[in-house]
């Protein structure tokens, strides 16, 4: 059922020619509708790559497992740092695990 956009948090990246999730989606699936919020053309065509989730500056997008494959309502949330990423994962029983690691080295030119 990916991705779910929270309309209370999403502002369609107002002021930007293109919202971050539109820009990121490798499948050209995201768009900003007449309501000024992001939407997905076809949730069934989502690859669950989570590129849009990582890019959203307002943490307004969540990837959910299609219910046909997994149960309600596990969560996986990335928090993007400059050189690191933190993932918070909560399973259907409420158990939360956090992972943090470096995803970029400091590069000296």
């Amino acid at each position, binding site marked *: *059922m*990916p991705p779910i956009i929270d309309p209370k948090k999403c502002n369609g990246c107002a002021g930007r*020619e*293109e919202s971050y999730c*539109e*820009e*990121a*989606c*490798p*499948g*050209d*699936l995201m*768009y*900003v509708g007449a309501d000024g919020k992001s939407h997905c*053309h076809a*949730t*069934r*065509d*989502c*690859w*669950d*790559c*989570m*590129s849009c989730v990582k*890019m959203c500056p307002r943490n307004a997008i969540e*990837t*959910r*497992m*299609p*219910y*046909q*494959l*997994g*149960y*309600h309502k*596990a*969560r*996986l949330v*990335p928090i993007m740092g400059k050189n690191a*990423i933190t*993932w918070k*994962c*909560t*399973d*259907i*029983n409420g158990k939360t*695990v956090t*992972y943090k*690691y*470096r*995803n*970029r*080295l*400091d*590069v000296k030119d």
Partner: protein
Amino acid sequence: MPRMAPNPPSLDAVETVRVDCDILIIGGGNAGCFSAVEAAKLDPSLAVVIMEKAQIMRSGACSAGMDAINTYIPEGKTPEDLVRWCRSQVGGGPLREDLALSNARELNESVDDLERWGLPILRDENGKIRYRGAWDISIHGEQLKPLMAEKAIEAGARVYNRVACTQLLMDGGRCIGALGFGVRDGKFYVFRAKATINATGGAAGLYKSYTADATDSHHQIWMCPYCVGTGYAVGIRQGAEMTSMEQRWVATRTKDFCGPVDTISVGYKAPIINAKGERIMQSRYAHLGADKAPRYIRANAPMEEWLAGRGPTYCDTRGMDPELAGRMMTDYLNERPSFVLFLASRGQDPVKEPIEIYGSDPYIVGGHTQSGFWVDIERMTTVPGLFAAGETAGGNPNKFVGGCAAEGKLALRGAVAYIRGLTPPEPDAVQVAAEKARVFAPLLRGQGFDGLRALEMEERLQRLMDEYAGGTSQFYRTNEERLDYALKHLAMLRDQTQYLQAGDLHDLMAVHEVIDRIDVAEVLCHHLRFRKETRWQGWQTRSDYPDIDPAFDCHVESRRDPATGVIETFTRPYEQLVPGDRHKP
């Protein structure tokens, strides 16, 4: 990039954009980005253009990230050793050892480039690269795609994002660029180049994924579903010679999610077991190398267990050290983060409960197996002016990230040598106008038109291929009669593309994707039909010819006549260049 433009009222209203360059790269993925960086190193004055269907910062197969580089030659081993391993992984070949060797000589440097650009490669306490198998190393590759894209842009490549390629631009039999349309701006693009590097992804979605029946998970597949085989299709339509298209990539994947399993079974030493708890690789495949058996054997093994009534099958992760389990989860978060979400959505702790596995749907991916264009050592296809790199270039299996990057550099060097002193002619106006009309026709058929949606045709194609050309539901088996049936219906599907209708530009992209998939599927079926033996169970299984036939120890090739559409199939001999037992790494 603007948001989606409204539909044009007529073909005349569609703006044509003309772009001239020295080198055109179709596809800004791994191979394409490395081509662009290499171009700037060789000659900063070269005008390089990248034509990208998505947005290169997060496009294609690398969009989610990567958890490993599967081929990096360790100290004490040689490129020849890597070729021996590649050869054993495809059952002793046939493969193009000349291509494999040239990639092997180049690939460490490409991986070192990635580290210099900021990719974290995991090392032990002594600073040595940490191997998790004989050849593969762990990375924290969540940012892999942005890192490559930034370097391609820094190198000066002009990137045209959201432009889908639909056809090559030809001058007689020579490629002088490519044509396509903007999926957001609705413009028609004419790229004229002295040389063109075809570096799109492979072909996913030719076959039905078994999770497609669940309406919200049509694309719950392992390979990027937006890589549909366009790179192959545009070459096939111009008569390029294709090689080994029958060698499909089928992999063992986690069941219902399609996450990579080698990470678990090989990297984390969790054995594959069946429903009875038997360690099947050790008990049934010891003679083929047990856990180190060729990949097609490992892909086929769980399916054989299901067929024999001993499924489900699992990777036995029970009792794994919690710290090690955490590292495994981190690997997944780098490559398929939603697999961690999947486990959470099952409430599953792999330390307590094993991870279920199954076979994937089949793909045509020349960076993994050896399907793709027949290329010379410079990576030029049989169409002059058209080079191929990465998933599109055939003959050279197990390239993966490092090898596809290396091949991007090699193809660029070939292209630069080719264009010396060359002036491309003006694009042929008749050809350009015909393609523009073909591309936009599905958008201009009008509301009253009784047509078909791309999705309907895609699902028809995928079911046809699944049931008749050896998909998951048939445990990858097919035979002559089924392939004849598939070919008959593929011809009908091609004829029916005249009824395809698009509601908007996003739809129009989907329409052209399904047309490309049909062209690739047809060639694939011809190859499967020609190889009257079973050389790679799972990847290529003929139930009517269940054994290896020494007469087929050769490359199977095909060429489609651009004028008639007739596909001829023929062979090329295998040449062993690297000495040693072909079946041993």
